[in-house]
C-alpha cells in the first residue's frame, strides 16, 4: 500500500495571543508543504492560529520517561531559585 510511505508530522500553532508555538497534534502528509496545507485544514478551522510549524516526527529527540527522576532531580533541591525563598518585610510592599 502506498500510504506506508506517508510520513508523520508534528503540528505546532502560534495563537493570536502572541505566545510561543504550541503542539497541536500530528498528521500524515507526503511532504512539508502538503503537511502545512493539511495542518491548516485539520487544526485551524476556527481561527486558532496565526502561524503553523510542521516538523517531521522522526526529527524530534525526546527525553526518556524512565530517566525522569534523575533528569529532573537537580531542580527539586534548589528552592533558592524561587522568589518565595527570600524574605522581604511587609512594609516594603509588593515586590
Amino acid at each position, binding site marked *: *500500500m502506498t500510504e506506508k510511505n506517508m510520513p508523520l508530522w508534528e503540528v505546532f500553532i502560534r495563537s493570536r495571543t502572541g505566545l510561543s508555538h504550541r503542539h497541536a*497534534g500530528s498528521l500524515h502528509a*507526503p511532504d512539508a508543504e502538503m503537511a502545512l496545507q493539511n495542518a491548516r485544514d485539520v487544526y485551524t478551522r476556527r481561527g486558532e492560529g496565526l502561524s503553523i510549524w510542521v516538523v517531521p516526527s522522526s526529527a524530534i529527540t525526546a527525553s526518556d520517561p524512565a530517566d525522569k527522576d534523575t533528569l529532573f532531580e537537580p531542580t527539586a533541591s534548589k528552592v533558592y531559585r524561587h522568589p518565595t525563598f527570600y524574605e522581604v518585610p511587609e512594609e516594603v510592599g509588593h515586590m
Partner: protein
Amino acid sequence: MYAQALNVAEQATHDDPEKLARFQARIDAEEKIEPNDWMPEGYRRTLVRQVSQHAHSEIVGMLPEGNWITRAPSLKRKAALLAKVQDEGGHGLYLYSAAETLGVSREELVEQLHSGKAKYSSIFNYPTPSWADMGMIGWLVDGAAIMNQIPLCRTSFGPYARAMIRICKEESFHQRQGYEIVMTLARGTPAQKKMAQESLNRWWWPALMMFGPSDAASQHSDQNMKWKIKRFSNDALRQKFIDATVPQGHFLGLTFPDPDLKFNEATGHWDHGEIDWAEFNRVVKGEGPCNRERIKARIKAHEDGAWVREAALAFAAKRAARKAAAKIAAE
C-alpha cells in the same frame, strides 16, 4: 462523535506485578500516561480499541449527514452541515493520531474498519430519510456524545485526553445547530412538526443505546474505571443525558416514544422504560438497517481516493528530485 463501550472480552496479560503497582499508583495520583511510558498490555489494547473505534465512529458518522448536504433546505443550513461534517472528519483524524501513538499504524486501523474487525458506534447504522434527522442527530446524537466525551477529557491516557479537549470545544456547535433545526420544524407547519416528532420517535431509543450496555451487563467497566480510562458508568451517563434532554424536548412540545418516561420526585431524575438490548446487539453485530451500506461507502471512498494519495506522493517525490537537481546545478 462518540466511542461506545462495546466491551469485548480482554485476555489476561502477564505483566510484572511491581511495574503494574507503580503504574496504578501513577493513575491513582492522576498523572497522565504518555505514549513512551510503561503500560500494561491490557491498557494499551483497551485504548487502541477504544480510541480507534471512536475515530471510526467519527468517520462513519459523516455518512448519515453527508446524505443531506446536497438537499439542505437553505444555504445557511447547507454551510452549517458541511462545516459539521468537516469537523467530524477532523475529529476522526485527531483520534487516529492519538491511537497511532500506541504503536498501531493508520493503515492497520483503516483495514480493521473495512474488514469489519473493528466496530463503530451503533447509532450510525440507522438511516436518515428526512431532513428532521439532521436536527435529531445534532440534538440527540451529538448531545449524547458530549455527555460521554466531557469526562473523557480527563481520561488517563494523555494523547486521548488532549484530542477530546479539542473535540469537545468544537462539538457544542453541533448540538446547538441540531436543536435549532428541530426547533424550527417544531414551530413550523403541522407537517413540519409531524416530521420532527416522527424523527424523534425513530432516534430516541438508538440515542439511549449509544451509552452502551447497562452496568449490570457491562463486562469491562470495572477495569476501565480502575485505569481511569472511563470515569462514569454507562447507566450514569445515560441518566444524565435523559435528565438534560427530556425538558428540552418538552419545551418544543414534542413527546418521547416511551410510555414509562416519568419524572421521579424522590430521586429528581427521569425514570425510563426498558431498552431493547436485543436490537442493540443485532445492530452491533452487523444486522442494523445500514451496516453493510456504511462499510461499502467507506471502502468505496477509500478506493476512489487512492489516486489522490498516489498523486500526492508522486508530486512530493518530483518536487524533492527537482530541489536536489537544482542544488547540484548550483554547486
